[in-house]
């Protein structure tokens, strides 16, 4: 199926969730919000899940060549982002046909994409260090990502929830990333530079730490991969 599947998979996601949720809530513009949320989440989850497991999946290469393991999460990030770019074009087309496309400025769109890549990648790298030493974590990550999807406002925007729920749920960085996507595609709003800087500052040490540990354990990780 190749590239067709990259578009078909998130589209099927959207259709299933739309039928399950949007119609129950009376339809309307909710489907477009759902479309933005799900496509963004699909990208984030792909980077984290696939990136975290990338060392295990490519153990044949890691056990045959002396290379820095960071290369595998990086390749996963690039591949998933390329797939998302195909999906994003489809989403923008659907929003435009539906007459709801209201894009923010180019800088905000770039900031949204860059922040999402940075945050997701930082988790992918740190988890990729842990998994060779505790392979069972793979199962926990896939279940945790499913749980996080419901806590990130993918299906119902957090902005429409109670103030108390928002106060809790906005501690989750993915909730902001999903919200950013809606702001730059549906509402034409600018992103908060303070919030973006905070997210980058929080995740930069995670990424740097993960990178350094991967380098330090370079000769140890291939021994642990089974």
């Amino acid at each position, binding site marked *: 199926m190749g590239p067709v599947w990259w578009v078909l998979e998130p589209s099927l996601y959207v259709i299933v969730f739309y039928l399950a949720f949007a119609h129950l809530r009376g339809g309307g513009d909710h489907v477009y919000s759902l479309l933005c949320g799900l496509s963004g989440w699909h990208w984030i989850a792909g980077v984290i899940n696939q990136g975290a497991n990338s060392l295990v999946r490519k153990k*044949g*290469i*890691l*056990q*045959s*060549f*002396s*290379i820095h393991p960071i290369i595998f999460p990086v390749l996963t990030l690039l591949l998933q982002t390329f797939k998302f770019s195909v999906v994003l074009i489809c989403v923008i087309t659907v929003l435009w046909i539906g007459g709801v496309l209201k894009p923010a400025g180019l800088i905000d769109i770039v900031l949204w994409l860059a922040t999402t890549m940075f945050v997701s990648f930082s988790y992918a790298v740190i988890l990729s260090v842990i998994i060779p*030493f*505790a*392979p*069972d974590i793979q199962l926990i990550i896939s279940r945790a990502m499913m749980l996080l999807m419901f806590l990130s406002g993918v299906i119902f925007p957090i902005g429409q929830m109670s103030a108390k729920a928002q106060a809790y749920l906005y501690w989750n960085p993915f909730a902001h990333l999903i919200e950013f996507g809606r702001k730059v595609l549906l509402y034409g709003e600018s992103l908060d530079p303070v919030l973006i800087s905070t997210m980058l500052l929080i995740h930069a040490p995670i990424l740097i730490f993960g990178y350094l540990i991967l380098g330090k354990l*370079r*000769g*140890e990780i*291939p*021994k*642990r991969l*089974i």
Partner: protein
Amino acid sequence: MRIMHLENVSLNYREGLNLFNRRKKVALKNLTLDINSGENIGILGRNGAGKSTLLKLLAGIFRPDAGQIILDKQVRVAFIGLQSGFVPYMSGIENAILTGLLMGMAKSEIKKKLDQIIEYAELDDVIDRPIFSYSAGMRARLAFAVSVFSDPDLLLIDEAMSVGDRKFREKSKKTIQEMIQGDAAVVLVSHEPALISNLCKKAVWFERGEVKEQGECSMVVDRYNASFHDESPSKGIQKAVAEDAA
């Protein structure tokens, strides 16, 4: 000229996957070894003796848990294992390029040598097919060809020659001889003592991660072969039972 020196090197694998299980299996114990340019070393030993682990250690894939590895100069190492590190769904030509890059070749260097690599591996007809459709011998030929054309200072071969046909063996033997004359070092792991005696001047015999014997090839191979005759089947069973009891 010495290119690599291993000083009291030990390496352990962790036993099991349980995070709280701290038990370790000793794969290499207090190994001291010199590798000189123009030298061809054969590694002998039974299953689980630590032969493949040694090659991965020399290739820089594994890091020792104790001891040190001293490199006397910047060394380009090529490692050929039975798994060969190929990506199954990629074609032979794509895997050749990827392998070359991972072995430290520049893309321009690979492109320049690609036709020679394909010709050497004798895979002209199938080079565009995915690697999963290749036989073990075909994969070994491709891995060997890329490794040789990467001009390594140290070539490490883990059983890869055993899966090749007679023609490939003769060709690879000739290439190895040429490489040694050109100052490269070759370390060859094989279960076949005959292959080691045929190709190597020096041999190391491993037993449970420790060097049992090392030195002139024919002497080490003879003693290794004799070890099978020394141990009669009944003695072997008695020894295994005693070890289990211990």
